[in-house]
């Protein structure tokens, strides 16, 4: 007890430092004797997953998905959208089960109302976000269903897969991993995740107005003229609420509807991206 007769500052330092040292030592000892080995299977799975933590699988991150797979609470090996088929196969190999098939999804913007096809109803000078512009009379765009082009989707995309061209968001389908963040970010609900093969024939419009109004708002809007419905050889198209809808299970991607559409609202798009655009520009210029 002699030491505690020293001056009070030294006492405080000794007690504080001593406690810290003691606790550190105890933790070291306990951790040494009670260490638990991490499940080697989980570590292997973590190595297989891409590690981008996009949350596309529905878990909070790659390690959460790996741990769910490792303790058998999750059996679906195809949930990783960023990795696709390769990752699903690798996971199945690590787990020793049969690999499921991944239907690769991709985000697509269902609007092609660029500046040249639409006009502005008023001069919007507010915050440059889709959500804010949408709050002011549904945004300045003449078509209130259409893309506002301020890029809220670009801000959330971690893969730089979205870009704005002539005031309309476009998805680089080669970079897109279908994590689904842009789908939530778009205030107009223009972006959807669709199976990649469905890009082949698409009604790239979300406008539900009747023909005359739709036409005056946007030159490439679907005007529900039913020509595609009559042309389709497999009756895969129907008009729902003034918008043509293609039944992708029935569609044979013959391209007839693309030909007859008077407003070019049906899009015959394959994989789209900046590279493709650059090449088009080169060819044009």
């Amino acid at each position, binding site marked *: 007890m002699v030491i505690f007769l020293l001056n009070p500052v030294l006492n405080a330092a000794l*007690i504080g430092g001593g406690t810290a040292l003691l*606790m*550190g030592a105890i933790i070291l000892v306990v951790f040494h004797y009670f260490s638990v080995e991490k499940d080697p299977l989980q570590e292997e799975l973590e190595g297989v997953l891409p590690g981008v933590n996009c949350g596309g699988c529905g878990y909070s991150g790659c390690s959460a998905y790996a741990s769910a797979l490792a303790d058998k609470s999750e059996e679906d090996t195809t949930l990783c959208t960023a990795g696709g088929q390769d990752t699903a196969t690798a996971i199945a190999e690590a787990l020793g089960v049969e690999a499921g098939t991944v239907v690769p999804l991709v985000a697509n913007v269902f609007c092609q109302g660029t500046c040249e096809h639409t006009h502005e109803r008023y001069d919007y000078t507010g915050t440059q976000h889709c959500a804010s512009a949408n709050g002011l009379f549904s945004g300045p765009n003449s078509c209130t269903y259409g893309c506002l082009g301020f890029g809220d989707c670009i801000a959330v995309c971690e893969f730089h897969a979205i870009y704005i061209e002539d005031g309309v968001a476009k998805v680089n389908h080669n970079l897109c991993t279908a994590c689904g963040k842009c789908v939530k970010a778009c205030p107009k609900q223009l972006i959807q995740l669709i199976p990649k093969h469905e890009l082949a024939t698409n009604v790239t419009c979300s406008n539900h107005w009747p023909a005359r109004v739709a036409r005056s708002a946007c030159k490439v809007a679907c005007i529900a003229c039913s020509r595609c419905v009559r042309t389709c050889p497999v009756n895969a198209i129907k008009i729902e609420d003034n918008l043509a809808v293609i039944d992708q299970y029935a569609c044979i991607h013959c391209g007839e509807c693309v030909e007859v559409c008077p407003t070019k609202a049906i899009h015959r798009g394959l994989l789209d991206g900046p590279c493709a655009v650059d090449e088009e520009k080169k060819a044009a210029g």
Partner: protein
Amino acid sequence: MKEMLIILFSVVLIDNLVLSRFLGVCSFIGLTKDLKNAMGMSVAVIFVMMVATGITYPIYWSILEPINLGYLQTVIFILVIAAVVQVLEAIIRKAFPPLYKAMGIFLPLITTNCAILGVMLINIQEIYNFGSAMMSSFGAGIGYMLAMFLFTGVRSKMENADIPEFMKGLPITLMAAAIVSVSFMGFKGVIENLFG
């Protein structure tokens, strides 16, 4: 016995840890989305609260107080609580895996939780004896559990309510928490009528 009951009731209802003293609010907001998380966290808090009192109480009264270093209690208590929780976590993970599954993920959240530290400091401040201090900690944990369960119920009702866009998420949650807290003011005076 009567004294113990008075401590228990006053800590649970009148000086409720979360709703009157506003301690542990972050876990109160963060973990009340479903009953399972609220349950796990509450049980973990009660457990750690008791263990931490059992350790910090003797440290204060037999080491710090005799050498006039009472003012160091905050620093020392944080250190001790954090270390104890870490050690407990490691032991539970190795020795009782089912228990670790039920409350293990909440233990790291508790290492520097203000609710635990707050109760330790209050126990010292009120000059309780050891038995009363343990009872007060247990009661504080029960009070925390009560607040968590009540608020989980409130939030599950809010899931289906039509909330204005600008109030969705945190704003409405904080306001609901405030109203629940105000409702607990109604318990003032309960002790006098129960035991007086």
